[in-house]
């Protein structure tokens, strides 16, 4: 069983946004693509100086094949979050004002059923298999596919924040 870690993506934003929309959009994107969704951490700390500090962690996984499993971990950390009322298109709407950092981590797990780690011989054989036989598939298909999925998820967050750097010319990749 080997984990192929992919590069971390970091997104930082400070301003007004809809936290509820962000949360729902990203969660729906993951669940519609068949990811099993877990939220092991949800910390909410009121700040005596004003606002609220939140720490949320999502662990999402999907069995891509009977050998490969995709993992996406999203960490949200918000500071000084307040609920404010804004007027959008003539209507009053409740939004959030905060400083927020999102960390996107992902990895491809191989042999998640542990069929190849029962004996030293099988472990050795699995190493040969991954290093020499299916290495091109691991590099060019599975890690590449997961990486671009994470970029798409990151773009969902950028759209929610209405960031200037939203959108991607790589949208049709995978």
């Amino acid at each position, binding site marked *: 069983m080997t984990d192929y870690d992919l*590069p971390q993506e*970091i997104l930082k934003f400070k*301003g007004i946004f809809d936290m509820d929309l962000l949360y729902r959009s990203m969660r729906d994107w993951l669940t519609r693509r068949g990811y099993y969704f877990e939220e092991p951490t949800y910390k909410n700390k009121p700040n005596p100086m004003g606002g609220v500090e939140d720490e949320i962690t999502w662990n999402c996984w999907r069995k891509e094949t009977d050998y490969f499993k995709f993992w996406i971990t999203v960490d949200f950390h918000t500071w000084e979050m307040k609920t404010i009322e804004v007027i959008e298109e003539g209507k009053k709407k409740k939004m959030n004002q905060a400083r927020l950092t999102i960390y996107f981590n992902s990895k491809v797990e191989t042999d998640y059923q542990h069929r190849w780690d029962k004996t030293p011989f099988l472990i050795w054989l699995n190493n040969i298999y991954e290093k020499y036989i299916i290495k091109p598939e691991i590099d060019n298909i599975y890690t590449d596919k997961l990486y671009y999925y994470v970029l798409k998820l990151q773009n969902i967050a950028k759209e929610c924040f209405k960031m*200037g750097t939203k959108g991607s010319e790589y949208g049709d990749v995978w």
Partner: protein
Amino acid sequence: MAEREKIIDELRLSYEGLFDVNEFYLTIDKWFRDKGYDKRELKNIEYVKPGGKFIELWIMPWKKITDYAKIEIKLRIQMSDIKEVEVEKDKHKVKLNQGKIQMVFDGFLTTDYENKWEGKPTYVFLRTLFDKFIYKGYTARFQAQVAEDVNHLHTTIKSFLNLYRF
């Protein structure tokens, strides 16, 4: 560890005036896509400040030229005091942004990125000999490609920003 050589060191570009932030970002993205680079965003920061938006973007797209060498272009972009403005062009009102852009370009050539020649000192020695004497011509060609790509990107962005000088 892979050998990373800096071919282009801090090539700078500054601009102040009108531009479209999103179009600017997508132009850079499209350039990399067209040239066959894989996307990599290291950092993406956007703060809304009283004086205007502040955006900091660090990207480092890469392209494998062979199974031994790859090109990485590191782009650090800082956009400050960005405000939304409306300008009239050809009797049409167009929504644009006004602000400052500071960009720094770095171009790297990374060899042995799969670390196949790192395991033992003998391998490292052989790799060094190979790089210096046998593979020299190819390495020079790859270095020239890095320089060409970075300069072409620099020119493309300059041309894009010049479109907004009206």
